[in-house]
């Protein structure tokens, strides 16, 4: 027997507006603490698993393949990398349209298997290509807070 009910009055069908009111504080974690403190110093850190021959960026406390502990295997990996892939983004995260689109890319840090998602700057979209060498541009020292935004963007490196 199907659920059928004829609606006599359209005012009987309604919706109830509401919210899930939450706010969060996310700690950086043991690995994140080291990573972001080094970002404040203008350096990027990775984590090396020798048995799997992988260097993770951002660094993490464990190797996801073999479960080895990586906490004493953090290494500095430099601030240069290559564009792994990229896009031109017209939408803000809340769905509204941006006036000026921004270039978002996954940057593979040189010599590692990891990468960072970030913006590309000081470059026109039509000049960007997969494999393009880039380097990080940091905010001035006084402005850095220990966040991923301490890197303003990645720009093409000559």
């Amino acid at each position, binding site marked *: 027997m199907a659920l059928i009910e004829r609606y006599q009055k359209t005012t009987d069908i309604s919706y109830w507006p509401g919210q899930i009111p939450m706010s969060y*504080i*996310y*700690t950086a974690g043991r690995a994140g603490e080291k990573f972001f403190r080094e970002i404040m110093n203008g350096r990027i850190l990775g984590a090396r698993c020798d048995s799997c021959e992988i260097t993770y960026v951002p660094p993490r406390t464990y190797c996801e393949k*073999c*479960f080895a502990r990586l906490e004493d295997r953090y290494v500095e990996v430099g601030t240069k990398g290559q564009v792994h892939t990229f896009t031109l983004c017209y939408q803000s995260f809340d769905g509204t349209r941006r006036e000026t689109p921004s270039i978002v890319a996954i940057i593979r840090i040189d010599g590692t298997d990891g990468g960072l998602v970030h913006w590309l700057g000081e470059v026109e979209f039509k000049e960007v290509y997969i494999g393009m060498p880039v380097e990080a541009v940091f905010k001035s020292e006084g402005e850095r807070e220990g966040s991923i935004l301490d890197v303003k963007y990645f720009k093409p490196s000559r």
Partner: protein
Amino acid sequence: MRRVAIVGAGLTKFYRNVQETPKELAYEAAKMALDSCEMKLSDIDCVVHGTAPDAFDGVHMKGEYLSDASGGYRKPYMRHFVGGGSGVLSPIHGWFHVASGLFDTCLVVAEEKMSCAYPHPAGAFLTIFDHTTEQPLYPTLIWIFAIEMNRFMTTHGYRKEDIALVAVKNKKNAMDHPSAQLPGEITVQDVLNSEIMAWPVNRLDISPTSDGAAAIVLAAEHVARRVTEKPIWIDGVGWALDTAYWCTRDLYYPDYLEVAARQAYKMAGIKEPSKEIHVAEPYDPFTYKELHHIEGLMLAPRGKSVQMLVDGVFNRDGNLPTSPSGGLLGVGNPIAAAGLMKVIEIFLQLRTEAGKRQVPGKPTCGVAQAWGDLMQVGTVVVLRN
């Protein structure tokens, strides 16, 4: 169906607030569980993860987020969630992966980081209730517990001072647990004098919100016997859910728990639970809840659990020790990890590896149980050595 055993276990410390990310917590527990039985990640065929609302850790699709930290990199991986019942649904979920014959080993992980919700996960609790008929009244979760405790007390004529003995017992037991968040020696008077949250619930009647993780390793019989001399068999599993129309139920008795318990006891061949079960870990997020569940698990007749508590039957040296670990009241309540912590306690008790918490008398059969959602779910496992 094949026999499945727990062969290893791991647990982090439980604190109100930790620095570690949810992933780092899950890894610590999972690694300890593997190390405890000298297995490697490559020995694990599949992974299941239990974790309660995404809203606590504040990560949407939390199961996927935690998968690599739980050892699930490119492995068959599933996440399950039944609110607070998740911790005991975890071994059940892992059990059917192995019992079905599809996999020989399974890593079961449970993690919760409630401190991400700042200052308090009240917003997540608000939306457990029906959004149209209940949320506009601005309810909080404490009301629901107080409402159930009130019905429980008025139906059986139980007194707050007797129910408070559960907090005294569990916090004392927790003093011997290495991960405990709130161990201590308190008195019934301390409980009654503690601040009223929502009568009849006082502050010391409630378990804390916590961060923590736990993990166990499951193996099919032929693997279990190779890996350890003391495999602990999962002999009975049961789980059942009641309606979300919670105002329609008589809250004095958890019917859904009896259904789950009967399912588990039937599978384990248990006819008289109060005689055949030697040690129990019923879920105790609130003091009265332990008694509510002891009655639902049929370890005490309805209306008689308080007398047995007062007589010392449930103490560690009593006839039917309950929550020898210290339970959620003493060790902490990182929702899903707390339930798995209870399973781990029975595992250790049956292997006589519970250290100072060991109950006397060489127990051979134990039961662990969890509960959750909107007073809805009962999950039960029966373990034997």
